[in-house]
């Protein structure tokens, strides 16, 4: 049993996913806090180059977990390959980003090892000797401090944006890279994935918008979207929405902000009737200023808002459009 912290970075088609740096930052912080050595791993086929990229950061060692069976990604191959690796190394903590890919294989991997995953964490705490991982519950209305009660390895996934990827510490002398070949029997892989593709070319690139007016369930009916559009127009911004609005077909899918849509960081994000479920917040919390209008004073969106208005959006938005137009005409 080696008491180490292992960060499994994510690569897709030979490129490191940026969110991997956030997880590595989390790993560095946890290593400093616990005194445990930090190691990292990347799994795939021909990923030694990526392992070397990670080795430039402050980390004790980087493993390149190799098998031709790991490309293209399948949950069967990733669970089998990582299980072999983890059983031979037995780290204490295994950290990964909470991406769609990790969500696809890590519960399977942990279950196959008789272990558990504390998923979608936003931070950690040290309570005496005990490590607690903080995650949001009830759509962000509450936070929970969760501990492991079973044996390590303990699996933790961190939410996109929970740590700063640009704060990852580099090192002058690169860490050693070790290639570990894993065996993945051909009949292990049952899914046959096709090429990854993008649906239609996106009509709007919301990431370039300086001002975004976004609507959520609180808009109630499709026809009410019109007043949000008018506000967006008055402000010279783009209209966007949370997932349920696009699911209902009230706005096209390319207007969706959140984990399954676009991630934006505009100058102003005006959230109308958006409660602030985690999946939405990860897509917009980088906005410089967030204004939220919601009738529920306990809506999680207010946790991250700079300006909060508890009230009926249908009463607030029309006079606001008037004020904005007045201000623009005067300037």
């Amino acid at each position: 049993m080696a008491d180490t912290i292992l960060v499994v970075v994510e690569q897709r088609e030979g490129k490191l996913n940026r969110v991997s740096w956030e997880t590595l930052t989390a790993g560095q912080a946890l290593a400093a806090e616990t005194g445990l050595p930090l190691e990292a791993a990347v799994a795939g086929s021909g990923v030694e180059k990526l392992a070397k990229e990670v080795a430039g950061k402050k980390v004790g060692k980087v493993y390149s977990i190799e098998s031709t069976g790991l490309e293209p990604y399948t949950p069967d191959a990733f669970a089998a390959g990582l299980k072999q690796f983890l059983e031979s190394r037995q780290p204490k903590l295994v950290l990964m980003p909470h991406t769609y890919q990790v969500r696809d294989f890590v519960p399977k991997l942990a279950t196959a090892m008789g272990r558990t995953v504390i998923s979608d964490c936003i931070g950690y705490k040290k309570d005496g000797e005990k490590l607690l991982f903080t995650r949001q519950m009830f759509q962000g209305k509450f936070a929970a401090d969760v501990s492991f009660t079973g044996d390590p390895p303990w699996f933790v996934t961190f939410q996109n944006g929970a740590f700063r990827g640009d704060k990852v510490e580099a090192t002058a002398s690169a860490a050693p890279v070790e290639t570990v070949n894993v065996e993945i029997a051909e009949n292990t892989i049952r899914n046959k994935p096709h090429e990854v593709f993008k649906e239609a070319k996106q009509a709007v690139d919301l990431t370039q918008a300086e001002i975004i007016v976004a609507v959520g369930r609180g808009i109630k009916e499709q026809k009410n979207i019109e007043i949000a559009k008018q506000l967006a127009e008055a402000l010279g911004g783009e209209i966007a929405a949370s997932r349920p609005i696009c699911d209902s077909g009230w706005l096209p899918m390319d207007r969706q902000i959140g984990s399954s849509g676009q991630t934006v960081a505009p100058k102003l994000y005006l959230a109308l009737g958006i409660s602030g479920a985690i999946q939405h917040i990860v897509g917009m919390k980088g906005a410089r200023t967030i204004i939220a209008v919601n009738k529920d004073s306990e809506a999680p969106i207010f946790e991250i808002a700079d300006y909060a208005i508890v009230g009926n959006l249908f009463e607030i938005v029309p006079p606001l459009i008037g004020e904005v137009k007045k201000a623009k005409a005067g300037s």
Partner: protein
Amino acid sequence: MKILVCMKQVPQKDAPLKLNEAGTWIREDVSYEVNEPDAYALEEALRQKEKHSGEVVVISAGPARSQQVLREALAKGADRAIHLEDNAFVGLGAFNTARAFAAAIKDEKFDLIFTGLQSDDYGYAQTGVILAELLGWPHATIIMQIEKGDSGIKVKRELEAGYFQFVDMPLPAVLTIQSGINKLRYATLIGIKQAKNKPLRKVALAEVQSALGGNLQKIERLYVPHKTKNTQFLEGPPAEIAKKLAEKLRNEVRVL
């Protein structure tokens, strides 16, 4: 095709939630509804049955109140229901919930098992994948489309940032379903009437207890999140709020 849909009852979206005295869970005296992605999972199962015939069975683990979710599913067209009824199921993690489901269906032969991609209460996004591993079945997550082929199925996985991927896979399989995969139907009056006569099998905790282990993780404390921002609340009549806000937009946000 014989399809099992795992469904969960969760607090209503805009229900005001309060912590219990111990600060470990919410007070249970709130309104509940079906976990939204599970409603889409059920709808997809009903549509697959309409296309390929077969049977749709719904399963839920929770106290007596959660039977409501199963009744609604039966009213929408599910053929029968399995209710693992006990208060203790509320506190089970994803691992044990999946184990309880696996134990409750051990004598059944399903082609497909659907779950919603995650729950609105715990939000673990794990139960479906764990269940697949316990059963030894392949799985795919965050599914937006399902087509039955000659020897298996072809599913459309949603990836991040607008990307998708088709995956061919054999049956039986577990799929976690994304909200928005279809348009939900409403229960009809006839459906509601018929639901009363549809079979609902109750499974007691004791029947699946031997399949469960200790929870491998524990919620030590549940609390209202600490604010990370210094939020200014703007108050007053709407016209006044609009004025204040326009002033902030001009002088502080500087977008006007």
